[in-house]
């Protein structure tokens, strides 16, 4: 199932649903890269509130998305990691290093506002 991507000004918002396959994630990566380029977005917020499992592939792909979008001038923030999922990720020994995180969409927007990349563009 493809992940819906909304555009709000200079920010792209991707809302991930629960039953996300590897294929869906890779597709998301491609789509975000394409859209960031097309719309010259400054920020990407990936909302994983509905994601009940974040395994090694998911975290790896999210790191990949952050890296790709950074190359195209956008900052990525992952929001909505659930407490149980956060514990599982950490116990699994994974990290989201290189990816900014925030509690939810609101905090995500707040974080983007403060980032250097952002201010440089204004």
């Amino acid at each position: 199932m493809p992940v819906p991507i909304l555009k709000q000004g200079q920010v792209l918002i991707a809302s991930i649903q629960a039953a996300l396959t590897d294929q869906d994630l890779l597709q998301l990566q491609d789509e975000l890269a394409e859209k960031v380029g097309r719309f010259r977005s400054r920020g990407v917020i990936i909302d994983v509130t509905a994601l009940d499992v974040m395994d090694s592939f998911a975290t790896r792909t999210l790191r990949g998305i952050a890296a790709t979008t950074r190359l195209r001038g956008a900052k990525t923030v992952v929001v909505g990691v659930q407490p149980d999922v956060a514990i599982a990720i950490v116990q699994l020994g994974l990290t989201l290093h290189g990816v900014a995180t925030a509690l939810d969409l609101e905090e995500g927007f707040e974080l983007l506002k403060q980032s250097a990349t952002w201010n440089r563009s204004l």
Partner: protein
Amino acid sequence: MTDDLRVAVSRDADIVTARQLGRELAGKAGFAGSDLTLIATAISEVARNIISYANNGEILLGLTSKDGRQGLWVVAQDHGPGIADIEQALLDGFSTGKSLGLGLPGARRLMDEFEIVSELGRGTTVTMRKWCR
């Protein structure tokens, strides 16, 4: 036991199926919410391992009990190439290329019991168990 489940694993969508069924089954056994996520994540890892290394295999799930505690067992088996050096495969960061190699050591950390049997050319079987607290 009638609660045993079997999931054929050959496409990445099967990973999701296996872990969702695992979560449901664990829920029936009375596992706490956070444990459900740990179990689903561990299943996701070993299921992905099957696809990465063996192309296809199966995940078997079931409930058990010991000393009055409920438990969930998971068996992930494939008839793939097998693992040459199991000890190495259980070390963090070890990889033969297709994945970052975190599947097995990661899954082991999330579960209470973890056994792996592998034979080159024959395949690999991972057995994991988690007990209700």
